[in-house]
């Protein structure tokens, strides 16, 4: 028996070793590459023509991506391999460890070829420091110039100008591709259960609420529990990046910038730390009162991932603070799970702040940047730029939206949306069934976000965004601009301490968790404690940038 067991164990070990070996090695030599087919080049006129795969030297690029396990095995990857002789090696990151891995990789000179980075202007000190130390390869104008779509962004983007170090750019910002009228405003707002608001009789026309109406609505939701959730019934839930400040501060204080907890703002020509203003303190006190009253979900404090979104989608919460862009998938999930009957049961609410203004923050003109590792070869960099440029052409946009011509769509006109979609249509949810639903294509993200208007998507999400944008156009929103000059300013104290945003967020959370404290006094004490460290940063900013 023992011998048999030993034999079985040994066999299992051998099998597991075999199972752990890579299925196939990316082809490095031209001889190993599959014969390149020649799909129609739908590039716009005047752009650098993309050479066909068979004419190009094979290239393998490593890049960190979210959802790495969903990459590399679908038709779009094969298409890229054939058209550009380009294979990707996907290095996994998650939302939780993304910046942590970037910091570790760059600090230890162990980064992938393409370092995709969730860089914000407010935390760009590190980027400048690393660029000066030679961690990244420069993206010179000569390199970009042959690629029309990229060059256009290179010449006009504010962030490209802001991130140059001694005249050279060291990271490529992924264009947000927002319509110009929204001025790169971060359209984050409360998404609410409109049907619940109606059920408690406090729904306001156009889903617009004054601050008092908003609180009354929340109180009614908590008291009447229209969702029948019992003890789990929640008013507001916030994502981890927006807790606790998202509840009130973003809506009220002229302080948060680019959805950071707080940064520095210029008042009367001088920089101040907004956390030290009376408006910010009033927002902290209001957040405290709402939390103690139970209008903000008590266990939100423990969230570490997507629990806020999940609670809303599960029908346990009335309002979730988040960015636009998730509504189609949220409402589809909620309908499928029987949480809502129709998509219109969920809608964005316009909530005017305590002073009657509806504050929105401007953000960077990009979402993530991609830096090239300092030891990348010219061939690799050139291939990446070629691929990114292609992704911004009509055919490239269709590749991201839909997939491959002849397989996923047929062309019916010149514009990207002029297509006939070949996917199966689901009458029940009113959506196309994408064959790529379990696949990811994040190697495309450095090229910029795919523009809105994907014909395969239902218009619900765009309609909702349009409501918000229309109100902005009516002048109802007060836009807090992004100050690139301040964000990218370098000085010994600012480089060391940054914006103290984490400190402000931490203390706000501590105050919230203490049911017996005086929030105003606690906040005053915090400001008094912090100012000796904040003031040297302000002095640097005012010496360097004041009017």
């Amino acid at each position, binding site marked *: 028996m023992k011998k048999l067991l030993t034999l079985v164990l040994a066999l299992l070990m051998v099998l597991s070793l075999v199972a752990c070996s890579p299925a196939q090695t990316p082809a490095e030599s031209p001889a190993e590459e599959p014969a390149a087919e020649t799909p129609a080049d739908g590039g716009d006129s005047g752009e650098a023509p993309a050479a066909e795969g068979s004419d190009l030297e094979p290239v393998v690029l490593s890049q960190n991506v979210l959802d790495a396990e969903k990459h590399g095995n679908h038709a779009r990857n094969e298409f890229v391999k054939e058209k550009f002789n380009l294979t990707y090696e996907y290095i996994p990151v998650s939302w939780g460890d993304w910046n942590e891995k970037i910091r570790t990789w760059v600090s230890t000179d162990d980064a992938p070829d393409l370092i995709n980075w969730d860089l914000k202007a*407010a935390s760009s000190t590190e980027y400048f*420091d690393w660029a000066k130390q030679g961690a990244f390869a420069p993206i010179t104008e000569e390199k970009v110039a042959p690629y029309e779509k990229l060059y256009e962004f290179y010449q006009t983007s504010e962030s490209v100008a802001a991130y140059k170090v001694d005249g050279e750019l060291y990271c490529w910002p992924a264009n947000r591709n927002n319509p110009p009228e929204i001025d790169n405003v971060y359209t984050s707002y409360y998404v609410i259960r409109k049907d619940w608001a109606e059920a408690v009789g406090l729904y306001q026309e156009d889903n617009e609420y004054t601050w008092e109406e908003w609180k009354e609505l929340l109180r009614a939701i908590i008291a009447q529990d229209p969702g029948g959730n019992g003890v789990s019934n929640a008013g507001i839930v916030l994502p981890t990046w927006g807790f606790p400040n998202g509840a009130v501060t973003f809506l009220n204080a002229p302080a948060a910038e680019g959805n950071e907890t707080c940064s520095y703002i210029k008042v009367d020509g001088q920089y101040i730390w907004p956390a030290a203003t009376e408006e910010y303190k009033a927002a902290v006190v209001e957040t405290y009162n709402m939390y103690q009253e139970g209008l903000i979900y008590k266990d939100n404090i*423990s969230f570490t991932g997507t629990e806020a979104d999940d609670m809303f989608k599960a029908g346990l919460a009335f309002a979730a603070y988040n960015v636009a862009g998730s509504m189609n998938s949220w409402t589809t999930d909620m309908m499928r799970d029987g949480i809502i009957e129709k998509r219109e049961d969920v809608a964005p609410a316009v909530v005017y702040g305590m002073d009657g203004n509806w504050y929105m923050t401007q953000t960077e003109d990009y979402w993530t940047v991609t830096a090239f590792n300092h030891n990348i070869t010219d061939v690799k960099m050139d291939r990446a730029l070629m691929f990114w440029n292609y992704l911004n052409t009509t055919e490239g946009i269709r590749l991201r939206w839909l997939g491959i011509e002849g397989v996923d769509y047929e062309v019916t006109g010149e514009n990207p949306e002029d297509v006939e979609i070949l996917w199966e249509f689901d009458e029940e949810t009113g959506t196309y069934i994408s064959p790529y639903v379990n696949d990811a294509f994040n190697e495309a993200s450095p090229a910029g976000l795919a523009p809105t208007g994907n014909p395969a998507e239902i218009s619900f999400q765009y309609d909702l965004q349009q409501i918000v944008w229309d109100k902005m156009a009516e002048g109802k929103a007060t836009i807090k601009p992004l100050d690139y000059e301040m964000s990218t300013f370098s000085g010994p104290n600012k480089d060391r301490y940054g914006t103290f945003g984490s400190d402000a967020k931490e203390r706000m959370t501590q105050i919230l968790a203490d049911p017996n404290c005086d929030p105003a006094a606690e906040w005053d004490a915090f400001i008094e404690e912090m100012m000796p460290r904040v003031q040297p940063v302000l002095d640097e900013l005012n010496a360097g940038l004041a009017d």
Partner: protein
Amino acid sequence: MTARSIKAGRRPFKKTLRVMWDYRWIYLMLLPCMAFFIIFKYVPLYGIQLAFKDYMIAGIAESPWNNFEHFKYMMTEPEFIPALRNTLIISFYRILFGFPFPIILAIMINEVYMPRYKRVLQTIYTFPHFLTWVVMAGIMLNLLGSTGMVRKVCEIFVPGIGDNWNLLYNKAAFRSLLVISDIWKEAGWGTIIYLAAIAGIDQSLYEAATIDGCNRFQKIWYITLPGIINMIAIQFVLRVGAVMEGGFDQIFNLYKPPVYETGDIIDTYIYRLSFVENTGVDMGFTTAVGLFKNVINFILLVLANFVTKALGQETVL
């Protein structure tokens, strides 16, 4: 053998080599272990110099010396001293309450007569060790959170107690929460080594004690405990040597800003400084803090070893 080597009490080198050759296969088995320690424990010691340098991406050797700047900064950084204090207090609590628990549990399990029941108990107590702290944090949230079972049960007996329910983020309760959850998760696993030691005690001693009329408590006191005292001493020395390890995994998964005051330890402080604050990682500073921590650990290990030796017990050094 020369007179000199006999005087020194040493084996001649040639003989040593011959013995090593005779047992060459045994020594060969030692090689992977040695390689592990050399590669992962000794080679990285080169990086300690970062504690005294301003790290540059060009490499450790190219980074300039900085005249102990990191240590000076460490002592002036307002969060460092509270983190150090928390590390020591939490570790002290763990030793005071957590260290004896596996010993008591091992003795209790050993006193169970039915072997099958004993094995079931051991499995039940050991199982939580295999859950990660991520899972444990989820379980604790579900149990102790504002919509958790504990609140609901407490509400039944003390109506209104749940109005300001804040058990998970109460800074006064957080250290107790850490110690209790740590005992819950690790005590069963900790019994294994003591049960092994108890199994090594000569059974004739128990038989003789029975003949002499000892009851079960007397047998535990006079036979079992003295039988495992050396193991307890060794474990104690090792535990004291790790006093600056406050339990990163556990605290990282359980703590939030409201309990930083009592729960932030050096490891979580370094992590926050390196990966959460938006000012970027300062490898020199974090190395300095790590070095400081390890020097204290080493001093405490030597001290505990000395005290244990002075008390006549077996030691690790």
